[in-house]
């Protein structure tokens, strides 16, 4: 792997740019948010370039000139590029939102921007690294910065939720590290490429995969390991919730994908994928049920995340062997992309609602104390994507899911997908009904007074919701470049 200039050099730059942006914003203090935004914008440009470059084929880069397994190798294919791109989009737009969310010279703002950039640096590292231990360190940066960001809300609920999140995060990453230790014991290398060639299905590798999966599932919040998520995502500030639901969970999910289907493909037993699918179905049911019952808006959105994560795991049995692999991989990727945009939009909109109304109790939201039409439209559009109605990205993802299920003959997935859509509709329309609630107007009080939050807050929520919509229209061209070794197109 000769480090070529040009395209491959983007890979380490994807980590350097947010890292330097975070450092600059930390040192600069109050004016640091502009340094951070500059880094986010530059990162978005790099992500777009990466997306274009991986069309031609996977990229590789050996850091320091030391080829793996002695050194650490970076690599990106179409799958990584898409994950990097959606991270860039969500962090940039939510960053613009945060400009107005955190007051100019506040102490909270000064801490937010460096942590936000470091979160992005950790995400990018996760998506481009090809080394198992490097993944562990990136997971830790991700987890710790996420915990720190949750505490920015400042109240006791947030700190409590952050503590629980921290403990969960530690247990998860240590289980993952134990798995890495086992793999290193038996194979003596940590490089993904080398492991993909020499890994088999010995008991030690199965145990290692089990441990690593347990840790990563805990961090990705698959039912029943989701218990920490609703509080943590609901009590964080709105842009932080958006990043947590949209991106942080997907980071560890990406690692799971690579482990199961590329690095240790032989170690996953035949029943393991089906177990995950069953848990995914349970997640959809449980998350939707709790979302329909909870009285608070942000908690509703958080439970919706629990449900949507279930969809990602429904497809695991299809990704391993047999027909329908390509369609299943397309579906998984599209679920990630569409959910990231839609959920981030939903959280940003919920943040607007909370700022205007002063609270987020759903039943007390009145039509005349809601933010402007932009926020409501963004929430509606995001909700429609989550339910899976055409022509949004959520619909495209579900369509591909059903295609893969039909090809593999897994007819029960049809029932689950349909049921999930119905349940999602319940909780989405529950909120939307408040937007159309005009009882106070009809009772003779004054006309609805639409209070406006700062324009960039409305626009950023709207942009992400529109992105979820656009994703539904560009599914074909976007997906033609994904390539995961072992899953033929």
């Amino acid at each position, binding site marked *: 792997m000769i480090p070529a200039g040009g395209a491959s050099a983007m890979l380490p730059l994807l980590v350097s740019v947010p890292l330097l942006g975070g450092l600059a914003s930390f040192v600069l203090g109050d004016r640091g948010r502009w340094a951070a935004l500059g880094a986010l914008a530059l990162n978005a440009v790099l992500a777009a370039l990466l997306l274009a470059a991986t069309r031609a084929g996977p990229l590789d880069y050996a850091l320091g000139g030391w080829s793996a397994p002695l050194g650490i190798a970076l690599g990106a294919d179409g799958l990584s590029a898409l994950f990097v791109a959606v991270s860039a989009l969500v962090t940039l737009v939510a960053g613009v939102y945060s400009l107005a969310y955190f007051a100019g010279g506040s102490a909270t703002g000064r801490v937010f921007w460096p942590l936000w950039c470091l979160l992005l640096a950790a995400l990018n590292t996760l998506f481009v690294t090809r080394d198992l231990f490097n993944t*562990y360190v990136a997971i830790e940066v991700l987890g710790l910065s996420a915990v720190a960001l949750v*505490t920015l809300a400042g109240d006791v609920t947030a*700190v409590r939720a952050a*503590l629980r999140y921290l*403990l969960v995060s*530690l247990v998860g990453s*240590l289980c993952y590290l*134990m798995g890495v*230790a086992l793999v*290193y014991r038996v194979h003596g290398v940590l490089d993904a490429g080398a492991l993909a060639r020499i890994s088999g299905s010995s008991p030690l590798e199965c145990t290692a995969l089990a441990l690593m999966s347990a840790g990563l599932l805990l961090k990705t919040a698959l039912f029943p390991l989701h218990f920490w998520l609703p509080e943590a995502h609901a009590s964080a500030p709105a842009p932080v919730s958006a990043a947590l639901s949209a991106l942080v969970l997907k980071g560890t999910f990406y690692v799971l994908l690579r482990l199961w289907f590329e690095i240790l493909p032989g170690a996953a037993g035949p029943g393991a994928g089906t177990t995950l699918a069953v848990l995914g179905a349970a997640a959809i049911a449980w998350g939707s049920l709790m979302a329909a019952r909870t009285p608070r808006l942000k908690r509703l959105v958080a439970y919706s995340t629990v449900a949507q994560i279930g969809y990602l795991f429904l497809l695991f049995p299809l990704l391993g062997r047999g027909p329908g692999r390509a369609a299943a991989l397309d579906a998984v990727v599209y679920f990630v992309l569409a959910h990231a945009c839609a959920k981030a939009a939903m959280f940003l909109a919920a943040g607007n609602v909370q700022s205007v109304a002063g609270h987020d109790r759903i039943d007390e939201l009145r039509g005349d104390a809601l933010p402007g039409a932009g926020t409501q439209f963004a929430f509606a559009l995001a909700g429609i994507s989550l339910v899976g109605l055409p022509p949004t990205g959520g619909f495209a993802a579900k369509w591909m899911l059903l295609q893969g299920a039909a090809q593999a003959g897994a007819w029960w997935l049809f029932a689950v997908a349909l049921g999930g859509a119905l349940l999602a509709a319940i909780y989405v329309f529950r909120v939307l009904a408040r937007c159309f609630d005009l009882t106070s107007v009809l009772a003779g009080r004054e006309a609805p007074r639409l209070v406006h939050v700062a324009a960039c807050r409305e626009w950023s929520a709207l942009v992400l919701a529109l992105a979820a919509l656009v994703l539904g229209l560009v599914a074909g061209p976007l997906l033609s470049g994904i390539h995961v070794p072992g899953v033929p197109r």
Partner: protein
Amino acid sequence: MPFTTCGVLLFAIGLYGVLAARPLLRRILAANIMGNGVFMVLVAGAFRPAQAGGAIPDPVAHALVLTGIVVAVSATALGLHLVCRLHELAPPAEDSRT
């Protein structure tokens, strides 16, 4: 081999502590013990008795453990800070132990 077993035991004891203990400080300490268990497994595997040229320990495993120790210390520090803040914001009513 005994060191490896000890490491695995520490891992399990720490895992139990995080899940089942009540005081927050104890759970953070249990997470530390879990980490130490993993590091012990890594270091125990680094010793290769008498391969071609005598017993040279594996430097990569040692470097991994050094990195891991720093990460564990950082995480513990964050956890302790959060416990302090929790006590500031919500002083415990009847139980004065952390």
